[in-house]
């Protein structure tokens, strides 16, 4: 991410490729050492372990529920069928769905997708922004109670989920926000302790020289925040934004509590239909696996798009 031109006069015998070149015409020459081979071997194993369950999900998504038990170790889809995906997009009639082992509930896929996008986007935008502000205060501003207040924020990281669930729900109800998207977004809108903590660690590392220079030039601390700290922290900010987005996208229980009708139903809650509906019956396997893959796809796309941005934005260390 932070790419600099290599100092041409650094004759080393150990190929250390971490400082890559940016000059396109020059080809990177890497020597194949046992170290690199081992490194790639490890990486490949990691990828296999990471991705095998996804293959399993795909294979199950393309199978028919009834046949799954008969050939449970087959590596290929059993009794190939698009039924799982059809159910996810709401393309099957209720009778068909039930006949194939799915649930009879109807799914308005695109509505739920839109709801999820709205919720995740707004929450991410607000949460990251407010958390960055607070992180700045805890890392680059000097004030008397800085450490004490930060400790309080850190404490909130450990508040047990079971404490927050019901009071937040009661609050949302009293504000009349039951069954609204705003109600779903509300608890996450202002900050999470994790985001503040994370950004603070990075803001701490931003070099002070540039800041000093700007301050000397007469900039206010606010200006420093917007013009220096944020641009120099695009990487961490993008990272936390992506993680926040994913977290908000995947949130299940809270949106389940708050939503009562399609008005405020998000994708994860709707796809909860594919879980086991009655005690002792299994889930709609094909539908569930298809739903998981479909729900993960927007985020993979999002990540690929934004990660490219991070790599391409030449992160300058700002000091030359």
């Amino acid at each position: 991410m932070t790419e600099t031109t290599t100092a041409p006069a650094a004759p080393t015998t150990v190929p250390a490729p971490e400082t890559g070149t940016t000059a396109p015409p020059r080809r990177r020459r890497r020597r194949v050492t046992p170290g690199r081979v081992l490194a790639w071997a490890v990486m490949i194993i990691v990828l296999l372990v990471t991705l095998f369950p996804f293959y399993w999900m795909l294979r199950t998504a393309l199978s028919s529920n009834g046949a799954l038990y008969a050939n449970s170790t087959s590596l290929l889809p059993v009794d190939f069928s698009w039924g799982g995906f059809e159910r996810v997009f709401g393309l099957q009639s209720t009778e068909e769905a039930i006949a194939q082992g799915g649930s009879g509930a109807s799914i308005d896929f695109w509505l739920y997708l839109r709801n999820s996008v709205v919720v995740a986007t707004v929450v991410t935008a607000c949460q990251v922004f407010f958390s960055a502000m607070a992180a700045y205060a805890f890392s680059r501003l000097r004030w008397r109670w800085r450490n004490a207040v930060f400790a309080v924020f850190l404490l909130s990281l450990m508040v047990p989920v079971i404490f927050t669930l019901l009071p937040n729900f009661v609050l949302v109800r009293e504000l009349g926000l039951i069954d609204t998207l705003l109600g779903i977004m509300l608890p996450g809108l202002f900050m999470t302790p994790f985001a503040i903590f994370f950004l603070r660690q990075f803001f701490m590392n931003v070099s002070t020289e540039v800041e000093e220079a700007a301050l000397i030039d007469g900039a206010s601390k606010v200006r420093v925040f917007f013009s220096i700290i944020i641009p120099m922290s695009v990487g961490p900010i993008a990272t936390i934004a992506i993680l926040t987005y994913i977290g908000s996208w995947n949130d299940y229980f809270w949106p389940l509590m708050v939503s009562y009708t399609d008005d405020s139903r998000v994708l994860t809650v709707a796809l909860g239909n594919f879980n086991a509906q009655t005690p002792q019956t299994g889930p709609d396997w094909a539908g569930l696996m298809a739903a998981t893959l479909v729900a993960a796809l927007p985020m993979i796309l999002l990540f690929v798009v934004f990660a490219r941005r991070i790599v391409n934005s030449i992160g300058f260390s700002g000091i030359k």
Partner: protein
Amino acid sequence: MAAPSAPPVPTVRGRRSGRRDDTRLALLFILPASIGLLVFYFWPLVRGIWLSFTSWDLLSPAEFVGLDNYREMVADPVFWNAVRVTLLYVVINIGLQTVVALVIAVLMQRLSRSTLLRSLVLAPYLVSNVVAALVFLWILDFQLGIGNQLLEWVGLERIGFFTSETWAIPTIAVVNVWRHMGYTALLIFAGLQAIPPTTYEAARVDGASEVRTFFGITLPLLRPILGLVLIISVIGSFQVFDTVAVTTNGGPVDASRVLQLYIYDKAFGQFDFGYASALSVAMLLILVVVTFFQYRMTRAGQTDLN
């Protein structure tokens, strides 16, 4: 670094003294976050602590009972078992996860900048806890799972991954490592990116080997981020719930009855919310102590870069 410019001139704002005091600005900057903190974290926390001193069944008014819940808790073998089981889980989970994530992050930085690689590594995090647990429940099934088929193929005995008292917790730990290793690796990776390449250059010029560079430069400079990652991971790990509920539901017998599972059962299954609150306060105290030590030990509050 920066060429030294003119010697520092006195600040234009004459009223402030040399030591800048940003209190007012700081308070402004933390204002939105503080609203969130007070309303959505602090108030529930205080209320939860209050409830731990009551007997409350969620649906009738709470009745103050003083320390009764805590007395009951100290004498409760299920509670102590839960603490033991949870600690075991956290140690296995975090130990494995941190090492694996560190390896992946370093590999990502050294081997390839490909964004495809990064998104693939992050992919498990996109799957919900419940679904990941279900998939592994199938893959590791005693009779029908590919995992055990492989074991048999290699000549080993089948293992009841989720049904054996010795294997239940380690298996759940591994499932969660699978899910979180990419996410943790990404966090560490972000930290690696923040280390100026110039420091590596300096090390190279000095002739340091890769291993030496890693332990002597990379790790120490990663400390703030590693500290954060460890703290976050441990806190999350302690509260493991979904995976256990889906795969073993506390079984076999009590081998995987983690604290959060017990808390939920008491709160929603038995309507004993006062006791569940006391259990949660206990968990909170454990987390506070652990985090405090982690923070100190990793000196996550300081950075070596400035």
